[in-house]
């Protein structure tokens, strides 16, 4: 079910400001791709173009082509809502719905898309929470508000919510930046398991994490403030972390940067 993503000649703008310049890349199905790079180089911006969340921001627009299994994401008659059902997203900051219980949070995507059957929802909620490694902690209080969980639990709740709608691709923007090392490891294990089914793209500032979880790593860089971010290099993770072909990549990975 997982899908291949092809990006060619992609430019991303906020109004007249070009945040990302001319990205070309291929993201393989059933793999984990990590985006690394200094702050402000456009990783989040680029990631959000992969499920058309970028255009939610007023004035934001995209040039270039993104295809998912050959279908143009930005085609004339493509509904962004359908795109987002196929390509799910986990955000940097945990954002559970405050009016909903833990159960309702996980079920939200399905319910709002018309799935009403209780038995079906029950099953999906349980598998999703197990998939996000949260089930054991919350199984006795599914009716409690989701906002009452700890930050790390909330983030795992958001992951459960995202996988509950069974997307084909899962985008994760620094999903572990608010988490302790144990939850981080739990999520990394989860990513490894999810990769059997999904195509996963993860943004991270943690080199070890990128090295641990990803099959392919892409390094973005920025020439200076006000300049657009660029894709510098993309290669299989072992190669990237041992013998990168670009000097900038090596400097960044080894911490000799700026």
């Amino acid at each position, binding site marked *: 079910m997982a899908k291949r993503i092809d990006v060619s000649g992609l430019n991303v703008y906020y109004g007249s400001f070009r945040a990302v310049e001319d990205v070309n890349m291929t993201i393989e199905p059933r793999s984990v791709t990590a985006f690394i790079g200094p702050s402000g180089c456009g990783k989040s911006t680029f990631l959000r173009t992969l499920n058309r969340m970028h255009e939610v921001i007023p004035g934001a627009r995209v040039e270039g082509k993104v295809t998912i299994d050959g279908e143009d994401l930005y085609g004339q008659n493509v509904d962004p809502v359908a795109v987002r059902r196929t390509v799910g997203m986990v955000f940097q900051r945990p954002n559970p719905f*405050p009016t909903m219980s833990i159960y309702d949070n996980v079920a939200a995507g399905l319910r*709002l898309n018309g799935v009403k059957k209780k038995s079906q929802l029950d099953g999906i909620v349980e598998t999703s929470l197990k998939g996000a490694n949260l089930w054991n902690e919350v199984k006795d209080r599914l009716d409690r508000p989701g*906002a009452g969980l700890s930050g790390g639990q909330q983030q795992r709740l958001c992951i459960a919510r995202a996988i509950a709608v069974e997307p084909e691709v899962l985008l994760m923007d620094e999903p572990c930046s608010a988490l302790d090392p144990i939850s981080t490891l739990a999520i990394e294990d989860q990513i490894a398991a999810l990769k059997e089914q999904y195509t996963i793209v993860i943004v991270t500032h943690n080199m070890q994490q990128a090295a641990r979880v990803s099959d392919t790593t892409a390094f973005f860089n920025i020439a200076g403030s006000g300049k657009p971010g660029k894709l510098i290099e993309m290669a299989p993770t072992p190669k990237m972390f041992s013998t990168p072909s670009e000097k900038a990549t090596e400097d960044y990975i080894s911490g000799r940067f700026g």
Partner: protein
Amino acid sequence: MSTTLLPTNEPTREPESRSLLPETRPLPGWMPWALAVAAVGLSVLLLLALGSLNLPLAVVVSVPIFAALVGLASARLEGTRRAKDRIVTVVVYTCFALAILPLLSVLITTIQRGASHLTPYFLTHSQRGIGPRDEGGGIYHGIIGTFEQVGIAALIAVPIGLLVAVYLVEYGRGALARAVTFFVDVMTGVPSIVAGLFVYTAILLGFGTTPKGVWGGLALSILMLPVVVRSTEEMLKLVPNDLREASLALGVPKWKTIVSIVMPTAIGGIVTGVMLSVARVIGETAPLVLTVGATDSINFNAFDGPQASLPLIIYDQAFRSSPYAQDRAWATALTLILLVLILNLVARGIARWKAPKAR
């Protein structure tokens, strides 16, 4: 990276002159009270010396004296920062008292003069056949009229107001949104008599119809609309964008995101705003004078014939010289105040019940 994980602090040098955390002796608890008594005493003495002692004046004069005494004492014992804190505290409480005083005064007067006449009989009978100089009668007809007119106003203003607010927050960009915001601001400032006159000229004169409850409701809705729009707009703006994005990223369409995520998150505040807008118009007299007509009888049908309303009854009875009419005016005023109070309590209840909870 050096080998130490945690940098050890350099040994701190002994402070030479001033310690980092100078000890302060707080003002003893009894001191402010003693100073308050002293301030009252001083002001009484002062007024006696001036030969014009009266109690309210003494209270007024003692406040600045008290502030000065507390400030001085605190500056001596606790330092200037605490002294400023204490003086500002006195100022803030004084302002609070000043703000609440007229309200309390109105409330107490209304209760004193109205409570004894506010009987079940009064609430369940009309004025039909009872002249201004007669005893008895009630305001049932006015309660019905007020409920129906305000209900009609809410039926018109709340849906339109909610939709306008949703448009402004979720969709509105550019010139149209700015124009809508501008006109909502203008509407906020429309004097209530103008709303009444507008309905009078546009509908009653324009279509040649007669005063009815519904026209009163229409006039009230003009006053209600900007309040609903403004309060709802503020509440929707408070909903974090993260939530909208989270919902959109699940493949939920925008309209459904607004209806199922944004509105429920803000519902407590929206309900409070709607209730406040009802409270705002329920006591309006001016828009009703020309639009609902007036009657002493019960009329359940807001779409046929003149209707009474509570503010109009107050207005009418208060200008009669008979003591019975005066009593009725006060009791009606008290009824209106109680209605607003109940509405506010209900709104608070709903807001608390619906508010996002963490536990």
